[in-house]
């Protein structure tokens, strides 16, 4: 199978990979919105969406009603509605940028997926090979660089809508994203300081970061980095308590107030993709990626389960472990959403610039010194 894949034309490979990204991220975005509705409902003590069912599926015993209670068909109903409903474009918008904004939002969201490794398997030589669409050596840099392009979508949407609330939402979103970008980037530096030991080959690849976590996970001995990264991640993805950009109470819908139908849906898929990718990157950086437990790397598990010579099964196992951790973070996003109320805008700015940024800087200096002191002992 792998031989067949390698024999394909690179262009064909790229097209298939591209379609795979779209084919995976869109349903994931939809599924996340359903999970969000279900979890929100459970936390508020109500059953959540549980009505929609195609009439022919209602005849299937047990499974039909079970899936109905789970609300699975609401997902399809919502998706179908989004595709087929009227797509209103208000008369006062700047049409070109108005149409452009959701697209600009989707592109970074779908592009960053390609550089995030989501699993690994052992090749014949017994080496771990990452499952990733584009194994770039700049890994994390590519993620940061491309995902921050997403802010253009919010600015464009807010500005081209040509009305007050979307404009305010766009401004807030861009200010917030730029503020937290700094602390986010600073908080991952200690990780890469450790991974790029002097004398070794320099790399920013996320795959190598996971490789460096065969023993202790970075989250265990760099908890402050992890926390700063997580807080910045909440801000970057515009999730509560940082959802300044939407803020239903004060800004109607924020930057997507004037949007409807699938254009609005694209914003949401982009938001959930950002959440997924952010969670994935967090898991890769601080929670050992596809290593099931601290000090228990994937290769050990492969040896116990005799999966070393079965790349397909091992690959699926590693994807399962990685996805499990990532989905926990998706849950965490929703969990926090129903726990912490929204910050005020000035509080967000204060937290970003006066608390998180100095903390990230101090943290960087502390770990730089610690790593300089520790690394010679480990390399010997």
């Amino acid at each position, binding site marked *: 199978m792998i031989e067949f894949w390698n024999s394909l034309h690179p262009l064909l490979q790229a097209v298939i990979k591209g379609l795979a990204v779209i084919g995976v991220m869109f349903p994931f975005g939809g599924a996340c919105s359903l999970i969000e509705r279900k979890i929100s409902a459970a936390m508020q003590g109500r*059953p959540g969406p549980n009505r929609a069912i195609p009439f022919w599926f209602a005849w299937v015993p047990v499974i039909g009603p079970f899936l109905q209670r789970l609300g699975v068909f609401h997902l399809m109903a919502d998706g179908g509605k989004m595709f087929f409903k009227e797509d209103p474009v208000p008369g006062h918008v700047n049409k070109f940028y108005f149409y452009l904004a959701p697209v600009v939002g989707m592109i970074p969201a779908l592009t960053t997926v390609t550089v995030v490794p989501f699993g690994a398997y052992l090749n014949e030589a017994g080496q771990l090979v990452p499952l990733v669409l584009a194994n770039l050596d700049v890994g994390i840099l590519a993620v940061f660089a491309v995902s921050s392009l997403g802010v253009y979508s919010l600015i464009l949407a807010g500005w081209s809508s040509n009305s007050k609330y979307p404009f305010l939402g766009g401004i807030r979103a861009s200010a917030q994203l730029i503020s937290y970008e700094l602390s986010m980037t600073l908080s991952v530096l200690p990780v890469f300081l450790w991974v790029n030991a002097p004398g070794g080959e320099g790399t920013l690849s996320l795959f190598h970061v996971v490789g460096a976590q065969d023993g202790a996970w970075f989250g265990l001995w760099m908890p402050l980095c992890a*926390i700063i990264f997580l807080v910045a991640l909440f801000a970057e993805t515009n999730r509560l308590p940082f959802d300044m950009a939407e803020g239903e109470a004060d800004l109607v819908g924020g930057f997507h107030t004037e949007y409807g139908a699938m254009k609005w849906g694209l914003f949401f898929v982009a938001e959930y993709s950002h959440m997924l990718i952010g969670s994935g990157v967090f898991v890769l950086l601080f929670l050992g990626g596809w290593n099931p437990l601290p000090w228990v790397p994937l290769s050990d598990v492969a040896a116990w389960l005799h999966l070393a010579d079965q790349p397909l099964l091992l690959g699926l196992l590693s994807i399962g472990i990685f996805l499990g951790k990532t989905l926990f973070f998706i849950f965490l996003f929703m969990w926090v959403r*129903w726990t912490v109320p929204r910050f005020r805008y000035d509080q967000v700015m204060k937290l970003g610039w006066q608390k998180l940024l100095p903390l990230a800087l101090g943290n960087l200096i502390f770990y730089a010194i610690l790593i300089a002191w520790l690394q010679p002992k480990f390399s010997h």
Partner: protein
Amino acid sequence: MPYVVERKPLTLSERLYFPQILAGMRVTLKHLFAPNVTMEYPEQRPAIPVGYRGVPTLVKDPHGREKCVSCQLCEFVCPPKAIRITPGEIPADQADRAHVEKAPKEFEIDMLRCIYCGLCQEVCPEEAIFLQNQYSLTGYTRAEMVNDKARLYELGGTLPDRHFKWDKKKSAAEARGHAAH
């Protein structure tokens, strides 16, 4: 009198913020696994408490006789003027009600006007009109939302009667008649 609410200075754990968030997350997690507090309406119906004021209806006495005597007190008392009564004579074929003075020929309650205040039930000297348990009333047209006499009796059914006022009146009148003779 205005008074000043004293704001306590934040404790260390409050200023660190994270312990507070974790405490909050414990609460929300508890709610995640707590049983639902909502009722799935069309399948599950709420228990109607005694004295509930639902849709006003006309009731019959245990003998299946019409109780309303068309006195029109409810029509007069009705604050939104939802009730319209056309008084009429007792039908000739109801011999056992011949001593009752009147009966409604037509009785209409416009449910688009009704405010469920229950004054009609309160004012009725015959205990003929009751706000019962039905709370869900829908229709496609305005005309559908006007309950006529037949519909009101259908909704109302029969309620137990403690007095049988007109039976007593009749027997009293008969006793008086016997005494006079």
